[in-house]
């Protein structure tokens, strides 16, 4: 056997990537690619019919994920991927719809859609890459920037209280909430797998390094330094009280699976409710989309 036959240079998740769009735009040391790898592995392990999985992204660095994933994928507008995904899922309930976007997109400009989708227990998997700043536009302060951290629009440090996303999501009604860092690759994969295999609104926050902007501006070193910070300061605490998950500047990061509970999804609740109140008059809204048949 010749050497070149034995060692084929092939990315193990190549079949899930649009290789004709690689190289991607992310910076060296960025954590988004790591989360994409976890997502791809979770998809493979989940044994879902990948023709029935759709990815919806918004705008920003993480917003570019939809453009690289080789599934039905939608790169939408800033803040609206959750609302877009809501329509997509409701129109075609046999789809597994994954929203893959950043903290600014989901919790900043898109915060209203995020909380309402959680409230409705819309059957969506939301993967939120949190890099603590608006990176695509040059490192501006975000709704997730820790107090005192420096950002290009908070040049003297941030004085606005940030969101704790797991707390927000549990309060809004999410039925699955987890947080990891880009260091916890296998845990991220596992959480995404769990989310893919359940019904209801699942929210997974992944804290990731933004080397070019957040780290540089705050003199935190490179990607490896940030992973070291995650290693030294993250504490796995499954089922932790989500009121206690604030992240301070370079402080402790509590990670784990915080919420997992059963509740009817929007569609299940709709079908149950109308069947009860309308009886035979109700046209059960099913899993199969007949429009094209």
């Amino acid at each position, binding site marked *: 056997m010749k050497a070149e036959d034995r060692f084929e240079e092939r990315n193990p998740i190549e079949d899930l990537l649009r290789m004709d769009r690689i190289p991607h735009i992310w910076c060296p040391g960025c954590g988004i690619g790591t989360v994409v790898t976890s997502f791809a592995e979770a998809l493979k392990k989940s044994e879902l019919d990948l*023709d029935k999985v759709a990815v919806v992204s918004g705008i920003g660095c993480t917003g570019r994920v939809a453009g690289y994933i080789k599934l039905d994928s939608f790169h939408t*507008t800033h803040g609206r991927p959750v*609302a*877009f995904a*809501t*329509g997509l899922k409701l*129109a075609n309930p046999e789809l597994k719809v994954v929203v893959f976007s950043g903290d600014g997109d989901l919790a900043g400009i898109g915060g209203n859609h995020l909380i309402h989708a959680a409230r409705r227990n819309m059957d969506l998997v939301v993967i939120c890459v949190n890099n603590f700043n608006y990176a695509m536009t040059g490192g501006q302060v975000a709704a997730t920037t820790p107090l005192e951290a420096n950002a290009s629009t908070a040049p003297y440090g941030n004085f606005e209280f940030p969101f704790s996303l797991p707390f927000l999501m549990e309060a809004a009604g999410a039925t699955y909430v987890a947080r990891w860092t880009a260091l916890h690759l296998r845990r991220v994969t596992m959480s995404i797998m769990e989310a893919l295999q359940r019904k209801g609104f699942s929210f997974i926050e992944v804290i990731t390094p933004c080397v070019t902007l957040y780290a540089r501006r705050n003199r935190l070193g490179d990607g490896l330094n940030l992973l070291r910070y995650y290693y030294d300061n993250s504490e796995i605490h499954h089922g932790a009280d989500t009121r206690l998950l604030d992240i301070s500047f370079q402080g402790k990061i509590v990670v784990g699976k915080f919420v997992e509970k059963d509740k009817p999804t929007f569609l299940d609740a709709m079908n149950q409710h109308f069947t009860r109140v309308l009886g035979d008059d109700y046209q059960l809204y099913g899993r199969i989309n007949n429009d094209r048949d």
Partner: protein
Amino acid sequence: MKKVKADPKGVLTGVHYLDGDYAIAEGALAAGCRFFAGYPITPSTETAERFAARIPKVGGVFIQMEDELGSIAALIGAVWGGKKAMTVTSGPGFSLMQENIGLACMMETPLVIANVQRGGPSTGLPTLTGQQDIMQARWGSHGDYEIIALSPDSPQECFDLTIEAFNLAEIYRVPTFIMTDECVGHMHEKVVIPPAEEIELVERKWYTGPKEEYFPYKLDKDGIPFMVKAGDGYRFHTTGLTHDERGYPVINAECQDWCVRHLCDKIRKNADKIIKLEEDEIDTAEVIVISYGITSRVATRAVQKARQQGIKVGTIRLITVWPFAEKKIRELASKVGAFVVPEINYGQIVYEVERCAGGQAKVIHVPHCGGWVHNPEDIYNAIKEAVK
């Protein structure tokens, strides 16, 4: 273009006494719309209420979203999920929707938005009429694009034009607007809903070729790309970024030129096929009244009076407001002395008429800032001035 008969499940065949808002909901159901995402806003809410009451018994989804930004985003998602989808709103909500109207244009997503106009700007006159969003319908989202907008003047036409709007949206893969107003929206009249087999619908332009040869924005012979829906195994990509025929972002001037020209030209080059006008006595006219929506009904009174006085008045009712009937007005400009343009705003469509008249014919605007319809006397006076 594949035509099919309406699904009888959504068609409430019979003679009804409905307001315009309800008629829009019935038109949508007859057209096969099975997804509605909306947010309450006066004076359009009745359409959402009617749809919410009817859809569980027809089969489909109504969802009241958290705002209009979300409503239109959900519509686009639903269309890519395979449904026909619509929403209804009024001025302030229409403003919020402008963001993703741009996305719908860019992704070439067929959908229908009804705007039951009220007086503006801002919160303006929530319960009183206006025709002040006509330019916004054309230009409201940023960048260059084209849309189709229809303007019904009665509840019956609200029903008919909603079906027409769905058909046009599917043919050209473009957001299509029903630009009605509070008067027509809240006016009760006889609405005849025909049997399902008499309602002709345009089916989505589904792609049926080999999967590996599918490109979301590869133009077909008629200039319109084929469509697929999520879940059919095409693993396609679409984006709000400037894109090539694969749907992949390409950030340069060449691709922008291809992309934008296509988005505009698919409507501009088909304008003759799209535009519907109601014309009356224009061949002999010395003055032509150009109006749309409720204002054309008010103008009728003024035109009758002027004709009784021996003035040769023709009328054009813009059933299709956008694309604008440019060719027609240019032709007529050299034949008539003047155009009279009443509209319930402080000057919108009149600018189009002036542009097309090109100085060849006088253009007299009859503005009304909203809150009520014109006094026919004002339009009559303008006609008299026109022939002076």
